[in-house]
């Protein structure tokens, strides 16, 4: 069992590669995507992804649009946004659309690591709730 299953989405390949290696080294499963569409198809493919690290500024579909798509298709997946300073308002908007948190680029790795673990914890909590609800529903039907 890995610590977390993560999808990193950023158009900066160097950043994605290194980040992936470092996270894998910390016993995480990491998937990579270099644009929004790839991210969505990766999510379809790997249902076990818990946290998406999503860059806001990408060519093609921008981070905010991708975030909305993710939240629609996979509401339980937590998203951490990576943003430049100039796109803080976007980040705020992202938070309003259900992102877990945002990090200012360049971010400290330790900080990111912490945020990921928090997000995973939150996701697990949500999943447990969802399961309990489902169990409750089933119990209700049976009772």
């Amino acid at each position: 069992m890995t610590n977390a299953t993560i999808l990193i989405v950023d158009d900066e390949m160097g950043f994605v590669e290194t980040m992936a290696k470092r996270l894998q080294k910390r016993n995480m499963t990491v998937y990579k995507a270099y644009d929004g569409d790839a991210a969505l198809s990766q999510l379809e493919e790997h249902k076990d992804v818990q946290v998406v690290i999503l860059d806001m500024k990408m060519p093609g579909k921008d981070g905010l649009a991708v975030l909305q798509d993710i939240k629609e298709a996979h509401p339980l997946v937590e998203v951490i946004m990576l943003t430049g300073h100039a796109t803080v308002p976007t980040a705020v908007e992202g938070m309003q659309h259900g992102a877990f948190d945002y990090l200012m680029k360049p971010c400290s790795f330790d900080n990111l690591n912490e945020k990921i673990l928090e997000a995973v914890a939150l996701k697990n909590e949500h999943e447990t709730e969802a399961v309990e609800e489902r169990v409750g529903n089933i119990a209700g039907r049976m009772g």
Partner: protein
Amino acid sequence: MHPDQKATYDKLSRNIALTVITVSIAPLILVGGLIFDQMRSIYREKVYSHLAEVVDKHKDTVDSFLQEKLNEVHYLGRAYSYEQLTDPVFLQETLRGIQQQFGRIFVDIGVIDENGRQIAYAGPYALLGADYSAAEWYRQSRNQEAVISDVILGLRQSPHFFITINNDTGGKKWTLRVTIDFLAFSHLVENIRIGETGSAYILNNQGVFQTKPLESYEHLTLSPVSSIPLPELSDVSIGIASGSDGEDYLEVASPLNNGNWRLVYLQRVSDAFSAMTRAETVTLLIFLVGGIAIVVTAIVISRQLVVRFKIIDRESELMSKQMVETGKLAAIGELAAGIAHEINNPVAIMIEEAGWVADIMEDEGKGLASSSEIDRALQQVATQGRRCKDITHKLLSFARQTDSRVTNVVLPALIREVVDISMQPARYGQVDFDLTLEEAMPPVRASVTELHQVFLNLVNNAIQAMETEGGGTLSISCRENNGVAEVVVADDGPGIPAANLNRVFDPFFTTKPVGKGSGLGLSICFGIIHQMGGEIDVESGVGQGTRFNIRLPYPAPVEQANAKELHHD
């Protein structure tokens, strides 16, 4: 100022002045001229008709006087016979009688026979037996029934005239002659005196004076210039004549004594119209003074207007210069933001790569001889990467677009941010910061960008002031006091002279050399603080440093609670 610009302003001033003068004076002249002209002609007519009336009336008086005398003499001739009249005693009685009856107008009575000899005489002169056969008057009167003679000196060598009646008693012709007192007659005319130069006299057909004229008129010769038609009083004529003394005269004449004489009234034109001339002079004076007042006012007003224009132009020029400056700054800001943003990515990758190497070293590099050296290098890469990050973040906060959105602003944090940005110039100016910040103070509602601008302006001003003295301490404090946020920015620089102290917030006031300062910094601060409902004031004196006090209000409690809630969301 540019000479072209000066010429433009001068032209503008001239045009305004000319327009105002034309518009105000033209109707004045038109209306004034019209009234003037009307007044003149009405007054002239009045003078003419008045004079004509006076002359006409006097002519009637003189005519009736003569007629009366003639009638009286006629009566004598008819009432008494030749024999009676040639009786000296009777004649004397008769003279006394008529003198008693009509006054001493009748001087003497004489009877002249057909040969021109005075055969009877009663009067003060010794004229009995005088021979008039050669006298002009006698010859002329021969063929007429009654004659009023011209005034002559005659034998008695004093002016007189007489009324002669030719009678015929039984084929024998004789003439009754009565002399009229010249002075009494003259008096009838002489009392027509109007103004200083107006007087009347009587002329005969040959132009010989029949009454004593004013001394100055005795040798005056007149050449008529024009005559003025008078519809009524058709036997009175008025003419203007230029006299031999160079003056213009008004000559009013009317025939007298069946056309043998003329009653002439003469007056200098200048005298006749003196009242009008006076009125005209006063009016002209008023016009002149009014005109000068209008011209002066127009010039002064146009100058003042143009001075206002100049000031407005200069202000707008500075304003637009400031706009350009602001635009330039914004462009630089955007560029900086773009660069900072682009640099962030490679720096991020570099930091991550260093981190990755560090990760690897942790696992596999323990045995390497230079592992500690590699660790140190990686540490250095990470540190310098963080520095790059700090720099780009500072650049980004400088470039943040002007944003007047009101948010909750934590003053201590904002002040620290400003101090961070100003650290570099402060170091060069050897300025130390002394911050006393009350961290727990509640946030104020304000635009971050605007407050940035305020504190940056104050801090930069203070640093620039202290720089000139080789450094100093810039103290900034903030605290909450009775529901107001108080910020004090104080330096120990050279201070502001009292003369400038109450002008520092004026727009465009600057002590910096031309082109160095816009003079807008403090006025912008003032504007921003006041827009927020706050206050800013300054305490300073030469050598005492400068202290800016800012007080910002907190919103009403309910509002603040809502705001906090919103912020929390």
